[in-house]
């Protein structure tokens, strides 16, 4: 399995430098949704890396599906998106905000 990266060209260059091949540079935010869907359906992708700002541009349902998904697992970078995702989930499941 591989790691896939979706984001603007500035964000993804560094990942290419680390040797990744499934790197999708999306500078047009209209195409972001379709690219992410394609990556999501690719069974060879184990981890999906995105920037927090790009993740927030996705529609609400897509965001929900992605953050719930285990294969591929979503890891967002830059900002506190992932922690707030998890934070909401922890609040919902345990009933107490433990992410502090």
């Amino acid at each position, binding site marked *: *399995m591989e790691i896939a990266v979706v984001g603007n060209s500035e964000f993804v260059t560094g990942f290419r430098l680390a040797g990744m091949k499934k790197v999708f540079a999306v500078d047009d935010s209209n195409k972001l949704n379709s690219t992410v869907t394609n990556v999501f359906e690719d069974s060879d992708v184990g981890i999906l890396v995105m920037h927090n700002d790009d993740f927030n541009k996705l529609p609400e349902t897509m965001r929900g599906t992605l953050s719930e998904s285990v294969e591929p697992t979503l890891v967002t970078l830059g900002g506190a998106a992932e922690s707030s995702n998890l934070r909401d989930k922890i609040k919902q499941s345990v009933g107490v905000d433990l992410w502090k």
Partner: protein
Amino acid sequence: MGVNDVKPTRSELIELKKKIKLSQGGHKLLKMKRDGLILEFFEILSKAKDVRTELDAVYEKATEKIGIAESVEGRIVVKSTAFALKDTPQIMIESHSIMGVVVPKIESSSVHKPINKRGYGILGTSAYIDEAADAYELMVEKIILAAEIETTIKRLLDDIEKTKRRVNALEFKVIPELQEAMKFITLRLDEMERENTFRLKRIKKS
């Protein structure tokens, strides 16, 4: 099961008693499972927090490094160097179980490579690009770790929620309803017995 649905018979009473015992056993077990899962969750939570903080720090550093590389070498050079890389880090997802919750264990082929194994020429590129590649390789390692831990947390949370619902459903819905039904049958049976005695007395009198 409402009180009106039960037939006030002795066999039904025995059946209900069995059901209550079973539900109480299940309730106890599920409660223990919930507590166990929460303990596991607490253990992983601190790890997840650490990994997240580390990842954020590494990301900041990596963006800084690539920014420097791009401004010194130019964006095109960095990009073309990046395209020269040939080894893609591969990940293997295995699974293991924590109290019946299947969680992934992600292993990867070595991401961090020595400078001469990366695939681009050392002479043609500057140290800034090497540093940026180094920083990004380190970040990918952290990403893999974060993905494993965060997925584990997600799965554990899902299961905690499910188990909690089951525990609550048994405690506040199933068991009380069964007990109510049992009480109804006992009362009804007693009532029928009294009716019978009274009827016999009346027959004896006349």
